């Protein structure tokens, strides 16, 4: 029998998670194990891994090779860029953002974390909580990943000892109080042998929680989006100008927060014109409501001037409209951030320019210390900065809304994305 019943897959949910770790933590082995034990690796892929294992002289099947990507990565035996991988169980479809864990790849970890509903952080059972654990947890907290799963790996190398697991759990729990991690789960595993990854471990009868896959299958999804604050960045105006739809003006976009219904009063930013939602359309259907992250089209009662980059919001719940922002920045380019430098900004569907005013502090991601003396923000640095934009942005605190609280920063000379920012309104990270 197939693992997908013909009705079941129409009800499957989606969970996006990120894994941070280096080769030494067994991250690639863990992903290989998840894919292998959930039967998501195909025979021809497995054959390729077998061939590569033999070529390298590895005795056993090296599951880490499953995650090999680009030529340079194979040659150097490291992960450089974020790779996206997919697997499904009858309950859920999973998207893994597989990121390298070394400090020089902080930007890649941040990238992988930006779309994740959950993060897996690997701790080597022999080493316990290290600087690297600190870094990975800080990034998960900074990017506001709602669920963090601490996998204490290599339990086979510490005799599957419960004491060791509890000690690491205690250490991390103490450390994590400095961070903002809403949901934390601990799983003792051995990725190499498969203990508690997909199959329960016979070596750790003392562990009563679920396997990693069970945890991934049961983490609540769907409540990670903001359902309170109505935010609809207008992405594209649909004007067919056909005989049938002669006067039609539809505002297409993806709901970034809250729930909208036909009849709701809305305010268009920045014009402040008011109207009511006439219809919410999804292709030929008219919907009773729309919520994040649905892509829909609104029509309004009145013919007000609304275009791309504007935002429809609820009159009793407005985002902050401002040109002066404080953001947590992750810098992603070799050329350092220029104080007083001008950059292009993309925020929701809105394009503006900005000038960088000041660096408040930098964060040492290994110790969480704030550095105030050093204003130079280079590649992979995380800093709190202030900026002023050429025209107002409609923002929420990143902690309230990941969509209206995030932005990318672009070098106008090269057009490259050189940094990313998370808006902070409610104090510091």
């Amino acid at each position, binding site marked *: 029998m197939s693992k997908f019943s013909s009705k079941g897959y129409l009800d499957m949910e989606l969970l996006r998670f990120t894994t941070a770790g280096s080769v030494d933590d067994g991250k690639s082995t863990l992903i290989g194990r998840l894919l292998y034990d959930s039967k998501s690796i195909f025979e021809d892929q497995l054959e390729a891994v077998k061939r590569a294992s033999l070529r390298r002289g590895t005795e056993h099947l090296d599951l880490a090779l499953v995650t090999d990507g680009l030529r340079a990565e194979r040659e150097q035996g490291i992960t450089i860029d974020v790779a996206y991988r997919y697997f499904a169980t009858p309950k859920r479809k999973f998207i893994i953002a597989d990121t390298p864990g070394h400090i020089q790849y902080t930007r890649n970890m941040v990238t992988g974390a930006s*779309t994740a509903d959950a993060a897996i952080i690997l701790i080597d059972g022999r080493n316990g909580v290290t600087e690297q654990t600190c870094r990975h947890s800080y990034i998960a907290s900074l990017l506001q990943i709602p669920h963090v799963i601490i996998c204490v790996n290599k339990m086979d190398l510490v005799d599957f000892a419960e004491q060791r697991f509890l000690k690491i759990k205690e250490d991390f729990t103490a450390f994590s109080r400095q961070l903002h991690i809403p949901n934390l789960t601990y799983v003792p595993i051995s990725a190499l042998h498969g203990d508690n990854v997909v199959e329960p471990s016979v070596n750790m009868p003392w562990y009563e929680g679920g396997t990693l896959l069970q945890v991934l299958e049961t983490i609540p999804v769907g409540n990670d989006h903001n359902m309170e604050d109505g935010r609809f960045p207008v992405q594209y105006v649909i004007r067919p100008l056909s005989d049938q739809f002669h006067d039609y003006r539809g505002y297409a976009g993806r709901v970034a927060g809250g729930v909208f219904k036909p009849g709701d009063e809305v305010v268009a930013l920045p014009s402040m014109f008011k109207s009511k939602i006439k219809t919410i359309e999804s292709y030929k259907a008219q919907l009773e409501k729309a919520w994040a992250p649905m892509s829909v089209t609104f029509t309004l009662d009145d013919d007000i001037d609304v275009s791309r980059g504007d935002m429809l919001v609820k009159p009793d719940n407005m985002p902050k409209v401002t040109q002066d922002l404080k953001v947590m920045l992750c810098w992603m380019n070799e050329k350092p951030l220029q104080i007083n430098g001008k950059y292009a900004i993309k925020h929701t569907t809105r394009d503006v320019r900005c000038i960088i005013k000041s660096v408040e502090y930098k964060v040492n991601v290994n110790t969480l210390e704030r550095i105030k003396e050093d204003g130079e923000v280079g590649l992979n640095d995380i800093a709190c900065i202030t900026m002023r934009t050429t025209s107002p942005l409609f923002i929420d605190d990143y902690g309230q809304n990941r969509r209206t609280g995030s932005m990318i920063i672009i070098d106008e000379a090269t057009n490259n994305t050189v940094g990313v920012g998370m808006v902070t309104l409610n104090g510091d990270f």
Partner: protein
Amino acid sequence: MNSKYNLTHLEELEFESMYVMREVAAQFERPALLFSGGKDSIVMVHIAMKAFYPGPFPFPLLHIDTGHNFDETIVYRDNLVKKLGATLIVGSVQQSIDQRRVVEEKGATASRNILQTTTLLDTIEQYKFDAAIGGGRRDEEKARAKERFFSHRDEFGQWDPKNQRPELWNIFNGRKNIGEHFRIFPISNWTEMDVWQYILKENIELPELYFTHQREVFNRDGVWLAKYPFMTLKEGEFYETKTVRCRTIGDVSCTGLTLSTANSLEEIIQEIAATRITERGGRADDKRSEAAMEDRKKEGYF
């Protein structure tokens, strides 16, 4: 309170792809949608239709035609174009050969697959397209796993995998200099299974090639290839009639057929759920070397 606001994985994927399509329309002046007649590009057309309804989608379809098509693909393509009133632009590999832009491979295993890159880049230049929307998926191949939704190409059409722009949240940076273009992959996050489930859910019409039929085929290195006038047998190969269907559709010379009796979408989905070989396992174009796809992509392949 939020449980009633859950979405299924197919809904989430569709909303994401619609969002990407609309970003393309908003950020670029002359986009085009690459249409091969395969299921992935058919799904993209369907999503584009939904994203801009009740208006037409604001870009033409662009078919890079190797001249080695299955007849059914062209019939399907022309019907679809007529039904939607869409604009179709064809870039012809035969024309690139006639103009001596490329030289045809020789021998029995010759394929026009790699020649498509030149035709594609020439056509993009000729029509001044600044964005080409493609149906590439990250689950297809290891080099594709690192691909962005908005993938920047320099003035030579090249992809630099080690120097890609960071891509975070759902904010896409389509800024570029004159002469450069973007490849856009709206269904990056879909798997083969997602595509089939979506086709079933949306009741999308497909070329008959995807369903079981009798066909004259021959076996080359374990792969079943179709009999066509431009295919040549090697010594020891012979034609036989088999019950087959296509799992992917590309150029005849590199599309392996699957022995199958699946005659409906439900049966196809059951077959794929049970199969243990990847979709591209039957694609001769990927078997040329371990980094075959990465190398072709760097040059400007789809």
